[in-house]
């Protein structure tokens, strides 16, 4: 009964005028950037981070969360109508969705992806509400050694599941942790790697790092590619599904929801991995698997449900353990810390309005998105006609003002430019920036827990193996690493990533 009371409290928070307004704004922005290829949720959230400073923490997180799951709705529109994924997580939707559109069933594909997403989002919201407090109870018994091992596990899994080479991804995690070391040492007050620059004594600016690596570097890479956005030729057609389509899509939505909810919780998981996973699953087990490649509705329904479910459940590790599971969640940690809230198991009790308000707003946001996406689809299609050459100056100026206004100093803007060059270099060397961001956020926390654990154990590193929770985490991490070094498993991952 407790959970119902808590949810009611959450709805009370989420239904306040301001929170409703910003949930709507988040959902609208999310859909817009989901529809537009070339700008994703990571870049958008990092460039909107500075804007959220003036808001209450709950409102800020509600809006940022809306952008993330809103992008999952919007991304499918472009995939289905233009065969061009608006988001990475909707790459697989192009495979069957665009075929459906060419068969004249674009409306049905759009409808099932919105309805499937809505169903998945609602279920996943309940999963977050149910499992959140339970996990929090477990997490409260964690000691510093357990925390350290848990974060290490999170970093390992996020590297293992990242695209491309595992070794390079782990190296990027290391680089991120290294960047996180810059600034004042908490225990001794000594300046580390600041080169006498006062602006660095609080560490490398999170906003500058995220904006440079994701926002600006993305602009540069998009400008190098010639624009391949053809004018819309497909007609949307009727949004109603036939009875036959309902029958085929329903089990896929259910499977996608379940898979996405589970994969979303995993570190490094999140929306894109879940969509790939659901597509592979549908191709193997669904009744219409022989129709794949000709426009099978299962291939739209499953992945679309999965990516939205995962977008919601990936909040679980963040809200209960304070550990970000992907780059978007790392940005959420940044947003919380800037607001003066340390994410972790105490958040549910200390900030109940944030926890329950966010959960309630997720459901409200999903309901809004259904309306935003289905009846208003024509408006989003029009948005696609804005060429990138007019879009990128806007993104750039927002980044410039945003990175300046975080701390009101121009040093952060120069840092953004430098990180943009670094991010550009990373992409040319096929180094993934997402694990770096997670390492950067977790690094300082890991150092603190490591020091505390070693102090308590009088310098004995065996403490990490003697405590059962910690030992279990390390064992899982070791297995995950070993599994990725096995050639056939790695091939499986590569196939899944290639779609």
């Amino acid at each position, binding site marked *: 009964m407790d959970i119902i009371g808590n949810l009611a409290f959450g709805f009370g928070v989420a239904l306040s005028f301001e929170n409703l307004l910003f949930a709507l704004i988040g959902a609208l922005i999310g859909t817009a950037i989901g529809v537009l290829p070339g700008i994703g949720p990571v870049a958008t959230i990092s460039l909107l981070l500075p*804007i959220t400073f003036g808001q209450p923490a709950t409102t800020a997180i509600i809006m940022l969360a809306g952008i993330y799951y809103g992008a999952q709705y919007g991304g499918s529109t472009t995939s289905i109508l233009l065969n061009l994924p608006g988001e990475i997580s909707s790459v697989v939707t192009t495979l069957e969705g665009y075929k459906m559109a060419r068969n004249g069933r674009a409306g049905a594909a759009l409808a099932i992806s919105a309805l499937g997403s809505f169903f998945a989002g609602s279920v996943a919201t309940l999963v977050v509400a149910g499992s959140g407090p339970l996990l929090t109870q477990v997490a409260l018994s964690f000691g510093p050694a357990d925390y350290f091992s848990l974060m290490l596990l999170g970093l390992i899994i996020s590297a293992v599941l990242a695209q491309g080479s595992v*070794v390079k991804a782990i190296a990027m995690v290391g680089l991120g942790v*290294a960047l996180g070391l810059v600034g004042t040492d908490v225990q001794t007050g000594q300046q580390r790697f600041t080169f006498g620059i006062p602006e660095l004594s609080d560490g490398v600016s999170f906003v500058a790092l995220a904006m440079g690596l994701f926002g600006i570097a993305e602009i540069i890479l998009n400008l190098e590619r010639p624009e391949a956005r053809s004018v819309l030729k497909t007609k949307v057609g009727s949004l109603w599904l036939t009875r036959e389509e309902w029958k085929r899509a329903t089990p896929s939505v259910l499977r996608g929801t379940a898979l996405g909810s589970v994969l979303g919780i995993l570190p490094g998981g999140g929306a894109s991995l879940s969509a790939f996973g659901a597509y592979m699953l549908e191709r193997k087990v669904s009744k219409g698997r022989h129709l794949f490649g000709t426009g099978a509705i299962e291939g739209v329904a499953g992945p679309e449900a999965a990516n939205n479910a995962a977008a919601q459940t990936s909040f679980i590790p963040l809200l209960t353990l304070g550990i970000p599971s992907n780059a978007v969640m790392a940005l959420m940690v940044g947003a919380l810390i800037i607001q003066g809230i340390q994410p972790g198991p105490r958040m549910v009790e200390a900030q109940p309005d944030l926890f329950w308000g966010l959960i309630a707003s997720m459901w409200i946001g999903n309901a809004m998105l259904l309306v935003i996406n289905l009846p208003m689809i024509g408006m989003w299609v029009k948005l696609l006609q804005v060429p990138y*050459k007019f879009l*990128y100056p806007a993104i750039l100026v927002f*980044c*410039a003002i945003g990175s300046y206004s975080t701390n009101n100093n121009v040093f952060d803007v120069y840092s953004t430019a430098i990180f943009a060059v670094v991010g550009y270099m990373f992409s*040319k*060397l096929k180094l993934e920036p997402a694990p770096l961001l997670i390492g950067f956020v977790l690094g300082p926390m890991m150092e603190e827990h490591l*020091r505390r654990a070693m102090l308590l154990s009088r310098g004995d590193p065996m403490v990490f193996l003697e405590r059962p929770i910690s030992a279990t985490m390390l064992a899982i991490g070791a297995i995950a690493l070993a599994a990725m070094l096995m050639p056939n498993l790695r091939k499986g991952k590569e196939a899944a990533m290639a779609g």
Partner: protein
Amino acid sequence: MKLNAKDIASGVVLILFAVVALWLNQDHALGSARRMGPGYMPMLVFYFVLFLGIMVLAIAFFNGPDPLERWTGLDAGSIALAVVAGTAAMWAAPQISSFFDANYGAFGLGLLVGFVVICWSLRWRAIGAICAGLCVFSLLLEKGGLMLALIATILVACMAEPEHRRRPLGILGITVFLLALCWWVFIKQLDIRVSVWPQF
């Protein structure tokens, strides 16, 4: 040969980073495992990065081929020239004007000159113009005000896209639109602490 040039370059970058960082870390007391000093965790992390860099480099000899994009002489030359010109501008800045004295002005001018020079090569034009836009923005913002900084940034950034140079009317449109939008969002709604008009 199955050389993976991208991974070789990645490995070298990682190793270089780790070695320089380990060298810098000599300033910090290590402490003991029980009472870790400020240098202990950095030491662990940098050795970790060094180890992974060596691993990436070692694997790179077998998992290719994955060649890097081929640079022309102009591509490499413009980078070298940009570094030289940028450094020179940074040192010369205090002599040019007192405008560059405060707020990392000299550093900003150096970066700006570097990014402008790099645009000489077509390959680097996007990265050069976009980053130069950011530098122009920071240089102009505090004395020139938001509006002037925005106009300059948009003009510089539009150089990244060849189509804009053929149709300058589009630049005018986007500038007016963005000035209005930024004024409404950042000054009217969010009220960030920045002057709007020049302060000369």
